[in-house]
């Protein structure tokens, strides 16, 4: 299976985005940074013991699924929406949802629009090759409205077109909208409309049928979520491992039980995954959270204990 391939290769190949601020983009030194990238690193740390043993393969909206299907990448972590047809028809497995998103609209304040329902006849910028295109069509159809799409290739281009006034509204995942808005020189002049017109569960996906590998990704991700829930951070992880009395944490960190072997990994896998870039909360805050220029609120992505949807099944 893929797990053996990755181990044999000594490197994880992760399909990623190159142009989405906060989620996946290389910096001036060519190092990939971002929310999705951190998950790749966590997986590499879990499987190979070294968070840097990961190769990022840039994919576009068009090439991503082919890259995964053809085996060019081991896992695709590139804000891809989990949909029925992708899961079933395209023969992929979405293993978890690392970001709950929804499609929203951003408009300029002086347009005088306060609801997406008022957008009848508007021109709307939209990224091509994504589910947002279909959602938009469905939304306007359902509300018996018309619109003119302006298709664009990537987020930076969308933002430029929107700012230049080539469209009245820019629609994409709400997280993307927030990120764009945060970096605009006149952020106050733009509002994100309250309607979220779709569910966009974004998550990592692997090829259909390779359940062991799917499990590795899934549980590495849940390890990060669970770590946040139990207060395990990259800073206190060693201490926790030594001192904790919570059996669940013990199992998670490999102090007790042998969950790692069931996955085909060693028992420290969870500890390494968390140590790589911190727990889910830490990753969120470091890449897209309120302290970053992107300033996303946790919202749906808060832990279930805090009214959000992020919920890790029990480690036992």
């Amino acid at each position, binding site marked *: 299976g893929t797990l053996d391939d990755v181990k044999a290769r000594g490197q994880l190949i992760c399909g990623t985005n190159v142009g989405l601020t906060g989620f996946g983009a290389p910096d001036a030194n060519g190092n990939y940074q971002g929310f999705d990238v951190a998950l790749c690193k966590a997986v590499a740390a879990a499987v190979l013991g070294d968070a840097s043993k990961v190769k990022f393969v840039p994919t576009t909206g068009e090439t991503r699924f082919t890259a995964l299907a053809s085996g060019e990448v081991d896992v695709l972590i590139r804000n891809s929406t989990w949909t029925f047809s992708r899961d079933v028809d395209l*023969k992929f497995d979405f293993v978890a949802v690392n970001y709950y998103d929804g499609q929203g609209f951003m408009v300029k304040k002086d347009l005088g629009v306060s609801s997406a329902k008022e957008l009848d006849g*508007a021109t709307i910028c939209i990224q*091509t090759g994504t589910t947002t295109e*279909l959602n938009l*069509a469905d939304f306007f159809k359902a509300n018996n409205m018309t619109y*003119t799409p302006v298709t664009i290739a990537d987020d930076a281009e969308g933002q430029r077109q929107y700012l*230049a006034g*080539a*469209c009245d509204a820019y629609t994409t995942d709400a997280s993307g909208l927030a990120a764009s808005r945060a970096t605009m020189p006149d952020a106050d002049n733009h509002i994100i409309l309250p309607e979220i017109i779709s569910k966009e569960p974004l998550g990592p996906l692997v090829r*259909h049928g390779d359940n062991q590998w799917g499990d590795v990704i899934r549980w590495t991700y849940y390890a990060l979520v669970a770590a946040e829930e139990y207060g395990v951070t990259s800073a206190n992880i060693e201490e926790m491992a030594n001192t904790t009395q919570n059996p669940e944490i013990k199992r998670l960190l490999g102090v007790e039980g042998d969950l790692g072997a069931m996955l085909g990994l060693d028992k420290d896998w969870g500890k390494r995954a968390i140590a790589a870039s911190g727990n889910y909360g830490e990753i969120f805050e470091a890449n897209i959270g309120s302290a970053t220029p992107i300033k996303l609120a946790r919202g749906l992505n808060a832990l279930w204990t805090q009214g959000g949807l992020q919920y890790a099944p029990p480690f036992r």
Partner: protein
Amino acid sequence: MLIYDTRYRSITIQVVVLVLFLLFLSWLVNNTIANLALKDRTFDFAFLFARSGYDINQTLVDYTNDSSHLRAAYIGLLNTLLSALIGCALATVLGVTVGVLRLSRNWLISRLMTVYVEIFRNVPVLLWILLGAAILSEATPAPADYRVTEAMQAAGEAPKASMVLFDSVAITTRGINIPAPMVEHGLPRLELPGISLNSNLLVFFLVLGAGLYADHRIRAHARRVQEATGLRPVTWWKSLAVIFVPTIGLLMLMGFHLDYPVLKKFNFTGGIEVLHSFTALTFALAVYTAAFIAEIVRAGILAISRGQSEAAFALGLRPGRTMSLVILPQALRVIIPPLISQYLNLTKNTSLAIAVSYMDLRGTLGGVTLNQTGKELECMLLMMGIYLTISLTISSLMNLFNRAVKLKER
């Protein structure tokens, strides 16, 4: 040995090549079948008839998101052809002008044209497309700038932007809105099995065609008169009359009027909107290709030796006549074959529409459809087939032309 006998040598080699080729083909097919099985995919084109579900912003014929993927591909193909056609026309006009001006004795102009040619030829066309799109959307006013609010009226302020060409054309960040031709007492659509035709357009073209034919007859007559008497009668006003009077009459009869664009809540509506993505793509391709065409034209004219024009002058022909009777007919033979291959290049380059997200064939069939259905093998093969058909059609026309105008030699 068969290989040493000139008669069998080539047959032997060909048989070997054929066997190798067939082996290669079957290897490819075999792999494909194996890969499809492995991925649990099928190879079929049924998806083309499923609902597409996405919208396209420039549709030359009816299309909604309820139409099929096939229809979407058709829309894309039409968009490709439209861009290619207009691009070729523009490139020709611009290229010929620049090519001729480059030969101008005016130092400044010929230098400027050289700079133009060199700059455009030596930079990737992708850059021109991207820059074109950026310039168009950055340098134009937003639709909101056209709005006159009550407050402004009260203060007597003018809006930031206003329409041009007698308030008929609005240039916005999105596109260029031009008036649309409309008729009041239109004829009903002509419903033929399979296709429905706009009979207004049909009638219009019929009348126009008749006018052109009449004009052709007038010229033929003029030529006969010239052959008989040596003097060519003046015909231009007759030509104008037979072409324009009936068509204008027809238009008036049908109640022709223009539908001007009007600013609605968000956008200009009414009229025809020419999208910037289309304009950017087409213009960028046109100016890029024009640089090549300019060189072709220049080389073509230079290829006609000075002796030809001198001989014509020595016979007493004026420069204008020399151009039209002696130089151009010869230069065209040299110019047209490379010109057509530039047309081919331009047509193929329209696939760069992807850079500005103009919904051409690649954008629909090879873009959204491929993405939404995941049928990459089918979509790509179909797309290649279509491009190949276009290219082969153009180049076989070129071969016909070449054969027709080939100089007779010993």
